[in-house]
């Protein structure tokens, strides 16, 4: 039996499947996708198509879909049934929730957060998009860009999703007309150009039902020269290194009994850190040098953002959970302004108190003011006395503990916090910091 406490050095997982020759080796990181679309635009069909065409579907699931499709009697296999857990729920009026799907190709693994598209479920879209590298927004080619589409694009941009794949679906129903496609693309591009945070739109003329331009290029669209949706997703470059400085929000201090070892555990964000780097501890402002780095209990010379690591320092500084180790300059603040998505029934009012969590720091927050509420359709900024579930707004908060805050646009990790209801402990709001004072 292998001793899992052994500290192996190097070679971690690099041997996996190398011997399964004949396939090229890709180093593309896993792509996290959020999908959004109005009801009946074909989202279930598209996800079903991706799962099916990448052979992710288990035989038994497929058999069940064949059986159900035969029962409905239209002869065609209805791929939407693969993901239809949600539909049943929608009809019964129970939970409508983000569902996660997984598929992989030889080039890449994908995680899909499937977010239901009802207007009132903004919070699901926020949850799905918060972890996404890219959003796929579906539009029915016959209906073009609708209010929901604009809403989804806006939310994606607020959450810092840099690229939206605009899937113009049901192209088969508009005779694969290039003009129809172009007008949808132009419409949405015009809208996102007016958004405060820039978003890139990449559009695909597809038929989720028939598979055109989903996995491979379609002969029905000779005028379209771009890649199929999946080909594009496989190659999409997502920046793993943010533009911010390296930061480690300390989760826990690891101190084995009977040993001098003292390691600060957390998930690295922003940029790389290496042994020898000088760091500052916030909010105390003390400085030290990195003398040891471990990931998965094994020594490493350098760590990259996203990695769950442990840092050893040269000096015996006082560091606790909630503190932040930063490379370079950072300041602590006790007031922030930010975009908020409100997620619970209890309204948010000026003067109300909540728990907050930012990184690993937990404390109390008071809402100083609601600056304005967004009208998601017109992008107007409206005054508001309170925020209700699914509202998006800008608020100012005072915090009981200083945090090392950054603007969300420059650091996802430093620029986000959640508000928690003191009475029920449920997560009440997601905040993207715009101003750190």
């Amino acid at each position, binding site marked *: *039996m*292998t*001793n*899992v*406490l052994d500290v192996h050095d190097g070679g971690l*997982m*690099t*041997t*996996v*499947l*190398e011997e399964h*020759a004949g*396939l*090229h*080796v*890709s*180093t593309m*990181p*896993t792509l996290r996708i959020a999908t959004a679309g109005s009801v009946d635009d074909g989202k279930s069909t598209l996800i079903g198509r991706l799962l099916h065409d990448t*052979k992710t579907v*288990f*035989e038994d699931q497929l*058999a069940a879909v064949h059986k159900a499709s035969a029962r409905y009697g239209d002869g065609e296999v209805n791929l939407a049934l693969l*993901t239809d*857990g949600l539909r049943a729920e929608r009809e019964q009026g*129970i*939970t409508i*929730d983000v*569902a996660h*799907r997984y598929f*992989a190709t*030889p*080039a*890449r*693994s994908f*995680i899909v957060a499937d977010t239901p598209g009802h207007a009132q479920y903004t*919070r699901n879209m926020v*949850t799905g998009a918060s*972890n996404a590298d890219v959003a796929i927004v579906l539009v029915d080619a016959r209906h073009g860009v609708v209010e929901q589409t604009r809403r989804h694009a806006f939310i994606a941009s607020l959450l810092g999703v840099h690229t939206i794949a605009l899937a113009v679906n049901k192209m088969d129903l508009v005779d694969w007309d290039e003009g129809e496609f172009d007008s949808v693309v132009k419409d949405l591009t015009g809208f996102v150009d007016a958004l405060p945070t820039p978003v890139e739109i990449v559009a695909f003329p597809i038929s989720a039902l028939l598979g055109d331009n989903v996995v491979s290029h379609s002969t029905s669209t000779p005028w379209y020269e771009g890649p199929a949706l999946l080909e594009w997703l496989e190659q999409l470059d997502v920046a793993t290194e943010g533009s911010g400085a390296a930061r480690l929000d300390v*989760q*826990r201090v*690891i*101190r*084995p*009994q009977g*040993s001098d*070892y003292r390691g600060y*555990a957390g*998930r690295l964000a922003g940029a790389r850190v290496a042994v020898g780097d000088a760091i500052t501890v916030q909010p105390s402002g003390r400085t030290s040098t990195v003398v040891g780095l471990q*990931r*998965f209990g094994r020594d490493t010379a350098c760590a990259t953002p996203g990695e*769950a690591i442990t840092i050893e320092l040269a000096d015996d500084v006082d560091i606790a959970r909630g503190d932040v180790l930063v490379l370079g300059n950072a300041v602590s603040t006790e007031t922030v302004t930010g975009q908020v998505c409100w997620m619970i029934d209890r309204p948010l009012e000026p003067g109300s108190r909540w728990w907050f*969590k*930012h990184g*690993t720091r937990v404390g109390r927050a008071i809402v100083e003011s609601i600056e304005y509420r967004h009208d998601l359709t017109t992008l107007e900024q409206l005054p508001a006395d309170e925020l209700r579930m699914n509202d998006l707004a800008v608020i100012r908060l005072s915090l009981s503990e200083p945090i090392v805050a950054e603007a969300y646009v420059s650091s*996802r990790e430093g620029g986000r916090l*959640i508000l*928690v209801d003191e009475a029920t402990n449920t*997560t009440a709001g*997601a905040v993207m910091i715009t101003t750190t004072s």
Partner: protein
Amino acid sequence: MSAAPQGPFGDPPFIPTHQSRHLEALADEAVTIIREVATECENPVLLFSGGKDSAVLLHLAVLAFAPARLPFPVMHVDTGHNFPEVITYRDEFVERVGARLVIASVQQSIDDGRVVEDEGPRASRNRLQSVTLLDAIAEHGFDAAFGGGRRDEDKARAKERILSFRDRFGRWDPRAQRPEPWDLLNARIRKGEHLRAFPLSNWTELDIWQYIKAESIPLPTIYFSHRRVVVPRDGMLLSVGGPVEVEPGEQPFEETVRYRTVGDASCTGAVRSTAATIDDVIVEVAAARITERGATRADDNFSESAMEDRKREGYF
């Protein structure tokens, strides 16, 4: 599996080759979740069945706190209907990582009159496990229980959160799930409540196997092919002996099989398989995913029991 597996992108069978980076990212995520919950909660426990998912979970938990010891105990909900190989394995693994093992016994729940066992040769103790688990959580005052559940197991699981809250009666209210934006986990609970944490939420079955290989994580021997006397029942091949008795009219026979999951021996089916090594199993799992309907299948039990297996693994 006799059918030559065909990949969607041509032969050889489709096994992703970018797995190294993918697996490491999954492991980073899991370690982060384990550290966070273990630090926010006062008295966590890790549920360990001896199955492959809980082996990966325990392995990651050990790595999360290295070089310190695992800061919480490991709990086995023991139905009493075990594969002996799994118990041996459990004890060795737990001892090797230096964890404290808590055994919550379904037999004890029965003896104490907390639950009533079904009668008859087909009675299963699966259903009774929940009571034993909740009693143990209350008895030890655990406020968080790590489980190896994965979202790819079934449709309902696909919507499970990483943190799942249980009220004082141990109930889960799917309507009251907390939103989970980013990875800012909110583990606040009231006294008497507890939460289940699923660090492997985003892993697929194939990820699990590839990680086991990459990290040389030991597994119970029953995961690999061996000869065993089995009896076909309800579309599954049940191992004869222990809790399973041959009923009149049934014909036991010896077969080369392995298990895809370890559970209560009275209702966990074996699959016909010659996969004797991790590599064989990975190819088999990859092939099982990609075999088109209509392609030759080794036997019908394969998919049926697989479905059953996944459901059972989702039990916790």
